[in-house]
C-alpha cells in the first residue's frame, strides 16, 4: 500500500522535476530560470523526505533540512545580481 | 617512537599559522618568524638524515593507526635527503625574499611556509591519497607564491599554471580512485604488495592508473608535453619564489622515483610505464635544449635549464636501474641548487638593468658587472656541466650510469645548447652595453643568499665522492623495496 503510494509520489515528483527543467531551459527570462531552479530545490526536499520514508531511514533528513535552510541563498544571490549586479556591497 | 619525523611538516605549518596571527605591519617580526622556521628545518633535516642513514626505515603512524589503514609517514634515506635539500634551498631563498620581495604582496611569508609544509609532506608521506593532499598543499601555496608581486605576465602565466594543475589534480584523483578500486588500498607499501597480485582486467586498470599517475607527476615534474606552463611561470615568478620552485619539479620526479622503486622495479609489474617516461623525457631534454637556445630572456633560459634537468633525470630514472639512482640524485641536488642560484642571479641582473630587464639585448652597463659576471660565469659553468663545478661531476656520473646512445647524444647536445645559450646571454648581458649605469645598488642582503646557493656547486664538487657514495647508499636502500614494505607493514603483508 505505502509502497505504491510512495512509488506514485516519486513519479509525481519526477514529473514535477521534469517540468521544472523544462521551464529552466525555455526561460525565457533569467528570473524564470532561477525560479525553476528554486522550485527544483524545493521539490528535492520532498524527494528526499519521501525517500527517507521509503527506505525507513532518518539519516537523510538533514540533507532535506539543509536545502530548506540555505537553498534559497543562491536564489537570493541571483536575484540580487539581477537587480544590483553586486551581491555583496 | 620519535616525533622528529613529522617535524618538517609541523614546523613550517606552525610558522605559517603564527604568521597569520601576527600583525601585518610588523614586517621584521614576520621575517624573523619565517627565517626561524627555515633555520630550524636544517638541523631537523640533519637529525632525520642521521636517523635514516643508519639504514632503518622510520615509520610514523599518524593517529597511532597501523598501516595500511592509517596514514603513515615514512622516513627512508631518499625522503631524508629530499628534506635536507629542501631545507638547504629554502633558507637562502627566503633570505633573498626578506631583502624586500616579501613586501610586494600580502601573505608572502605564510605562503612560503605552507609551500615548505607541502613539499616536506610530499616527501614524507607513505600514503597515496595523503600524497595527493600534500600535492594540493604545495600547489595551492605555489599558486599564491607564483602570483606574488604584480605584473600582467605573471598573472597570465599563473593562470595557465593553475588551470593545468587543476586538471592534473583531477587526473590524480582518477588515478587514485582506480588504485583503490583495484587494489583496495591507499598505502604505498600495501599498494606495492597488492599490485603484484593483480591480473586480467584489474591489471589493465592498474596500468591505466599508473600511466595517469605518470602524467600527473610528469606535469609537476614538467615533462613533455606537460612542461609548457613552466618557462613562463618560473620566468615571471618573483625571484625567491622561482628559486624555491627549483625543488617543485623535483617533487614530481621524487614521486615517480618512489612509486617506481616501490612497485615497478621488479616482479610482474617491473618497468610498468617506463617506456612512456623514457621517451617523454628524451623529447623533453631535446625540446628544453631547443628552448634554451631560443630564449629571449635570461629568466626563460634558466627555466628551460630547469626543464632540461628534468628531462635528464627522468630519462635516467625511467630505466629503473638502481645504478642510475645514485648519480641521478647527485645531479638532482646539483641542478636544484644551481637553478635556484641562477634565478636569484637573474633577478639581481634585472635590478641592475632597469627597463632592459632580463631581456637578452643590449642594455645599460652593470654597476658591479665584474662580480655579477663572475657569479654568472660560475653558475653557467656549473649548470651546463663543465668542469670544474658540480655539473660536470653529475653529468659524467649520469653518462657512465646510463649506457644509451640517444641519451648520451641528447645530454651532450643539450649541454652544448646550454653552453651556447648561456654564453650568448652572458656576453650580451654583461658586455653588450650602452648608456649609463642605471642602478648602483646591489644589496648585500640579496647577494649573500645568491652566493650561498652558488657556493653549493664547488662544495658539491669537492665533496663529490662522499656525496656520490651517499646517493649510492640511498639508491641501494631504494633498490630493495622489501625494506620499506617491511618497515611500513611489519611482518603482516
Amino acid at each position, binding site marked *: 500500500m*505505502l509502497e505504491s503510494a510512495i512509488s506514485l509520489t516519486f513519479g509525481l515528483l519526477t514529473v514535477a522535476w521534469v517540468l521544472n527543467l523544462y521551464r529552466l531551459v525555455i526561460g525565457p527570462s533569467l528570473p524564470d530560470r532561477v*525560479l525553476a531552479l*528554486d522550485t527544483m530545490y524545493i521539490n528535492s526536499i*520532498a524527494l528526499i523526505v519521501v525517500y527517507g520514508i521509503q527506505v525507513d531511514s532518518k539519516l537523510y533528513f538533514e540533507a532535506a533540512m539543509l536545502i530548506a535552510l540555505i537553498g534559497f541563498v543562491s*536564489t537570493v544571490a541571483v536575484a*540580487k545580481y*539581477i537587480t544590483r549586479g553586486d551581491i555583496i556591497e | 617512537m620519535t616525533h622528529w619525523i613529522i617535524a618538517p611538516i609541523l614546523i613550517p605549518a606552525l610558522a605559517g599559522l603564527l604568521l597569520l596571527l601576527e600583525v601585518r605591519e610588523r614586517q621584521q617580526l614576520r621575517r624573523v618568524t619565517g627565517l626561524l622556521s627555515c633555520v630550524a628545518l636544517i638541523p631537523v633535516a640533519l637529525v632525520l638524515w642521521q636517523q635514516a642513514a643508519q639504514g632503518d626505515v622510520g615509520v610514523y603512524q599518524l593517529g597511532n593507526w597501523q598501516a595500511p589503514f592509517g596514514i603513515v609517514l615514512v622516513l627512508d634515506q631518499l625522503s631524508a635527503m629530499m628534506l635536507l635539500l629542501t631545507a638547504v634551498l629554502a633558507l637562502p631563498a627566503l633570505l633573498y625574499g626578506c631583502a624586500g620581495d616579501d613586501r610586494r604582496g600580502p601573505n608572502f611569508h605564510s605562503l612560503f611556509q605552507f609551500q615548505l609544509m607541502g613539499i616536506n609532506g610530499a616527501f614524507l608521506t607513505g600514503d597515496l591519497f595523503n600524497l595527493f593532499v600534500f600535492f594540493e598543499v604545495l600547489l595551492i601555496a605555489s599558486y599564491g607564491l607564483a602570483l606574488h608581486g604584480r605584473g600582467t605576465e605573471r598573472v597570465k602565466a599563473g593562470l595557465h599554471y593553475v588551470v593545468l594543475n587543476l586538471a592534473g589534480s583531477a587526473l590524480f584523483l582518477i588515478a587514485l580512485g582506480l588504485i583503490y578500486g583495484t587494489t583496495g588500498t591507499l598505502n604505498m607499501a600495501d599498494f606495492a604488495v597488492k599490485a603484484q597480485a593483480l591480473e586480467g582486467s584489474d591489471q589493465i586498470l592498474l596500468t591505466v592508473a599508473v600511466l595517469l599517475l605518470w602524467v600527473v607527476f610528469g606535469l609537476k615534474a614538467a615533462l613533455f608535453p606537460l612542461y609548457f606552463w613552466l618557462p613562463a611561470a618560473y620566468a615571471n615568478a618573483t625571484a625567491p619564489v622561482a628559486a624555491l620552485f627549483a625543488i617543485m619539479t623535483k617533487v614530481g620526479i621524487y614521486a615517480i622515483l618512489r612509486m617506481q622503486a616501490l612497485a615497478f622495479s621488479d616482479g610482474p609489474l617491473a618497468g610498468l610505464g617506463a617506456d612512456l617516461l623514457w621517451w617523454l623525457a628524451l623529447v623533453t631534454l631535446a625540446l628544453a635544449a631547443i628552448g634554451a637556445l631560443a630564449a629571449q630572456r635570461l629568466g626563460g633560459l634558466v627555466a628551460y635549464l630547469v626543464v632540461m634537468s628534468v628531462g635528464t633525470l627522468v630519462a635516467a630514472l625511467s630505466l629503473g636501474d638502481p645504478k642510475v639512482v645514485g648519480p641521478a640524485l647527485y645531479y638532482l641536488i646539483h641542478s636544484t641548487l644551481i637553478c635556484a642560484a641562477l634565478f636569484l642571479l637573474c633577478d639581481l641582473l634585472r635590478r641592475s638593468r632597469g627597463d632592459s630587464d632580463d631581456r637578452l639585448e643590449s642594455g645599460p652597463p652593470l654597476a658591479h658587472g665584474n662580480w655579477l659576471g663572475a657569479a654568472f660565469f660560475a653558475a653557467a659553468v656549473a649548470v651546463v656541466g663543465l668542469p670544474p663545478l658540480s655539473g660536470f661531476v653529475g653529468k659524467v656520473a649520469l653518462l657512465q650510469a646510463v649506457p644509451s646512445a640517444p641519451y648520451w647524444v641528447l645530454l651532450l647536445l643539450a649541454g652544448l645548447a646550454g653552453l651556447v645559450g648561456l654564453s650568448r646571454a652572458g656576453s650580451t648581458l654583461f658586455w653588450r652595453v650602452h648608456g649609463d649605469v642605471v642602478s648602483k645598488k646591489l644589496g648585500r642582503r640579496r647577494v649573500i643568499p645568491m652566493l650561498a646557493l652558488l657556493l653549493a656547486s664547488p662544495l658539491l664538487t669537492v665533496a663529490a665522492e662522499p656525496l656520490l657514495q651517499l646517493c649510492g647508499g640511498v639508491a641501494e636502500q631504494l633498490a630493495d623495496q622489501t625494506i620499506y614494505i617491511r618497515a611500513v607493514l611489519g611482518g603482516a603483508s
Partner: protein
Amino acid sequence: MDVLIEWLVAIFVVVGGIFALIGSIGLARLPDFYTRLHGPTKATTLGVGGTIIASLLFFSWQERGLQLHEVLITLFLFITAPVSAHMLAKAAMHRDLKRMKGTRGEPWKQ
C-alpha cells in the same frame, strides 16, 4: 491502527506529491513570470508540507514516539520561501518582464 497510519501516511505522501506537481505545472504553463511565481511558492509549500506530515506520522509510528523534527523543514521554508519570492519579484520588475495581457496595476520601477 497500523493500517490507519499507513493509509494516512500514504495519503499525505500522495497529496504532497500532487501539490508539488501542481506547483510545477503552474511554473510550466502559466503565461508570465509573475503568475508563474505563484505556482511554486504556493504549491510547493503544501507539497513539501504533505510529505513532511507523512514523514512525521511514519517515523512517530515506527519509533513509537512523537517525532517532530521534520517540522523544522517547514519552519525554515516558511522563513526562506517568501524571501526568494520577494527577491525574484523585484528582479523581474527590475528587468521589466512582460506581463500577461490584462494584468491590472503596474509593477514598481526598481
